[in-house]
């Protein structure tokens, strides 16, 4: 694969080329951006333009980055193998970060000529995460990430209408959710709760998704539980994006006016993030502030890269009086 002289070493029970490949692509001697790009290219099979678009960089620059990385792997002899057992815990979090990004690119694919949901990418991310879990069955974050992916994937078909428009969680046909994936995801979340170890980011996100997938409809959702879980997440990741997502739940619990006050405080830091404007637009719409809502939808449409999302936002905007 990287022109090594010696054949890959056997890795025991899990002898999977892709697993070896992913540990190579996610090697700590490579820069984080390089790891993601390389994994998307070598493991996920994305094209160079797709990766360049995902990173908002020039295609030539992305090509050079990947070429340099392959040269380094070969020249410095970054091994093509799964790390030894004692080194695995230190290496796995970097791999999970990359897998999560691949899943997200599949779940909310970017680009005007791309399918809104790239099932090939989400399926590959799940498959690889299962491999990591088989390798490290007691690792909480690996279980958490797998549960998060399964509970998200379960809603895939309900999430985009036949007309190619995004369907929000509130409007989704819950009967179309995949019960087997939800059952498996819930099992993993329960397993982590029973472990009684402080959960990391993926486990908390999985628990939030477990609350959503346990509810019959949006009114039946335990929003106070969702907000409590986001509070937990804010403590380990106080980023503006987590705060934004928390505000969406707060809108259901305390009303759109309370949520909007929080969202508006994020304006400076999330000005270029489409979901910030989409969230604001929705909250303003619910508060009857149509003109401001329209302006926020315009901004969100301008920034959104996903075709289904653009279609949804456009319809919402055009429904405003």
């Amino acid at each position: 694969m990287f022109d090594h002289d010696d054949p890959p070493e056997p890795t025991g029970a899990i002898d999977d080329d892709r697993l070896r490949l992913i540990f190579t692509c996610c090697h700590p001697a490579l820069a984080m951006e390089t790891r993601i790009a390389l994994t998307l290219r070598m493991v996920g099979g994305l094209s160079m333009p797709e990766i360049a678009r995902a990173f908002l960089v020039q295609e030539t620059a992305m090509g050079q980055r990947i070429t340099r990385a392959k040269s380094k792997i070969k020249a410095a002899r970054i091994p093509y193998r799964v790390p030894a057992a004692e080194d695995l815990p230190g290496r796995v979090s970097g791999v999970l970060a990359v897998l999560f990004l691949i899943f997200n690119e599949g779940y909310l694919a970017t680009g005007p000529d791309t399918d809104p949901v790239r099932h090939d990418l989400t399926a590959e991310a799940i498959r690889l995460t299962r491999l990591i879990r088989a390798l490290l069955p007691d690792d909480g974050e690996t279980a958490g990430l797998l549960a998060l992916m399964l509970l998200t994937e379960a809603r895939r078909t309900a999430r985009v209408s036949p007309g190619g428009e995004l369907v929000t969680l509130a409007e989704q046909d819950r009967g179309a959710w995949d019960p087997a994936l939800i059952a498996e995801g819930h099992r993993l979340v329960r397993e982590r709760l029973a472990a009684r170890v402080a959960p990391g980011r993926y486990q908390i996100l999985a628990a939030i998704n477990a609350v959503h997938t346990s509810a019959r409809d949006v009114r039946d959702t335990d929003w106070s539980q969702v907000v409590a879980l986001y509070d937990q997440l804010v403590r380990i990741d106080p980023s503006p994006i987590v705060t934004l997502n928390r505000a969406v739940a707060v809108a259901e619990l305390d009303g759109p006016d309370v949520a909007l006050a929080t969202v508006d405080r994020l304006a400076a830091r999330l000005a270029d993030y489409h979901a910030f404007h989409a969230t604001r637009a929705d909250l303003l719409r619910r508060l009857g502030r149509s003109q401001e809502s329209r302006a926020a939808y315009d901004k969100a449409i301008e920034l959104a890269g996903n075709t289904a999302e653009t279609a949804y936002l456009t319809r919402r905007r055009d429904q405003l009086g």
Partner: protein
Amino acid sequence: MQYLISVIDDRTNSGTEEEMAAIDVFNEKLQKEGYWVFAGGLAAPSSATVIDNRNDAAVFTDGPFVESKEHIAGLWIWEAPDLDVALKLATEGSKACNRKLEVRPFH
């Protein structure tokens, strides 16, 4: 596979006795486990001379080829099967000599 390990320092003659002792222990391990090829400490960068004879007119310049805050204070050459092994040793070595290390493969 051979790797050049450059010892990066921002002071000269900065080695303490404790560091020297820790480096000795680390070097013994390198030799015993078969990674050792070569090691040496370098005099201050100000003692370097750059020679340029590309045009058959040798020019000698006083000082190192690049002036920088950090410089190479010493080096190792290790024989290691792959980068994982080299990085593991370098992690130990950086602690032992209390300096940053750069690991770079030979062709």
